[in-house]
């Protein structure tokens, strides 16, 4: 038990004194998750809105596919991305393997169905009276779409927060695609896995504290958003 307590205090020391290897992993995590979120938001948000707002042939099939993608294991995504960006893969020429961009690709695939499915669900909850009200106030089709999107803004933000929490805490893709290279592609989760394997609990706990803090902040904000 003592080693855990000692590890905790050592972790605080590492964080407060700005230990470079610890903060390098934090920095890599923030970079890669932000990059993957940017891509997922740009693609997933319009797709989710389209899916929730319009009725079209095959909509149910698309929803089923999307729901299946929500359950994709990260190691499977990692494996697929590894295959695609390795030197023998179709994107091998871009040298993305063991780079933050490569990890971001995999994490985008992880975040995309979350953002799309949760956005679609939020849009589907729009009260039918909203469209009627907007038409009766003189809104055109574009006004109606934009206002509907604004009306479900809390649901959309909740989708983004959920996806961000997921990509921040995943380990499979980062490990397989990034290779856990110190100062380069080592993220918080891969560093924790490594440090724990080496018996360096203090480093692991320090990184874990950062991760827990971020996850806590994310979930607290989600809690307040859901309350609205």
């Amino acid at each position, binding site marked *: 038990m003592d080693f855990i307590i000692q590890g905790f205090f050592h972790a605080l020391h590492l964080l407060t004194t700005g230990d470079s290897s610890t903060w390098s992993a934090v920095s890599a995590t923030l970079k890669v998750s932000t990059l993957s979120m940017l891509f997922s938001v740009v693609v997933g948000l319009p797709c989710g809105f389209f899916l929730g707002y319009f009725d079209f042939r095959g909509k149910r099939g698309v929803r089923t596919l999307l729901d299946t993608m929500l359950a994709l294991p990260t190691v499977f995504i990692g494996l697929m991305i590894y295959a695609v960006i390795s030197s023998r893969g179709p994107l091998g020429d871009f040298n993305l393997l063991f780079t933050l961009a490569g990890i971001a690709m995999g994490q985008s695939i992880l975040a995309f169905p979350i953002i799309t499915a949760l956005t679609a669900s939020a849009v589907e909850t729009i*009260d039918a*009276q*909203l469209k*009627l*009200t907007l*038409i*009766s*106030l*003189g*809104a*055109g*089709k574009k*006004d109606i779409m934009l*206002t509907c999107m604004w*009306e479900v803004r*809390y649901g959309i933000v909740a989708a983004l927060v959920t996806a961000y929490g997921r990509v921040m805490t995943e380990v499979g893709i980062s490990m397989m695609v990034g290779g856990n290279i110190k100062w380069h592609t080592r993220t918080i989760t891969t560093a924790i896995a490594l440090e724990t394997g080496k018996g360096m609990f203090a480093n692991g706990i320090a990184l874990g504290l950062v991760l827990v803090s971020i996850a806590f902040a994310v979930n607290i904000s989600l809690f307040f958003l859901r309350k*609205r």
Partner: protein
Amino acid sequence: MTPPSIYTLENIVQAYKGKIALDIPHLNIAPGSITGLMGPNGSGKSTLLKLLAFVSPPVKGSLFFNGKVEAPFSPQVRFDITLLTQTPYLLKRTVQENITHGLKIRGKAHGRKDPKVCKQVKEVMDRVGLSFQEFAHRMDYELSGGEAQRVAMAARLILKPRVLLLDEPTASVDINSATLIRRAALYARKTWGTTIIIASHDHEWLQGACDNLFQLYHGKIFQAGSKNIIPGPFIKDGQEFFSPSSTTEAEQTLRVTAPPHDKAYALLKTDHIHITAEESPPKEERPEKDSNESPENLAANPHIQEMPGKLEQKQYHTVRGEVLRLMGDKKNGYIIMAIKVNEMNFTIRANPEAVIQSKLLPGSRVMLTYALNDIEWI
């Protein structure tokens, strides 16, 4: 010279999933008028209002607005017509933002602190009895049902619409809110000449406020008091049929001729219903009667309406009723009587002199006689 109609409906049919919800061969609505729509739930009132609001196009027919055929989202109708529903949706914003949203769509609101817009918001909030100081910055979820409805009304008033469509606006609000909403609607007509069309179950309000009053049944529209519906399904009894849905006493059946199909409704024109004040003998001594009496015999009774002369050789049926309400018809000076027969209400138009002569008041017992041959079917 008669002013051109703001709305003209020609052979309008609206249907949902193949089921006809509205079938109006012709209807004109004059600009600046107040038109009332009455009718049971599902009769087509809301469908008609949505059509008039150009929310969705009819499946058949032409809908003219201001003399031109218009379609949903056309610039001519978007900014002129507004609809207030029974349960309005308020945007997840403050009261002030909700009220100014229509102006924003029109490009007439520039920020929350625009003094001109604030003044307009205050005016319309006062009009619906909401204090600007107290309510302007409240969120939608901080309002009661009545307050939300008044905010929704204010959001329509600020647009100074040419047409204000009200779909049971007072059905789910308290008396105070209902009064304020009614007053605000009349204010719009008085101040801006707004054409108002109201669907409501509040007959007294409609009778008092409307220039024209229509009844809707089964998607068909009639001048109020001109026709009555006897709802089906009908049960066969010998050579005749009766409506069990309108029957509570075995001897008080509303008889009809053979319906053309299972879902048919019997239609009885007011002019074909003969009303006499019931005399005092006890109920059990005055059973329902079917007769082949000639019009001359019936004419001996104290009529409220003249029996049409061509009713000879018709089979008549008589039922008892009780006068529930007497209301004045502003447009043509008739008295509109609501008469309860079993569980259903008849609405009948009568001459005021005849009503006075017969000393009919709410609570008076009357006999209603109609010829089975006069029944029409829809």
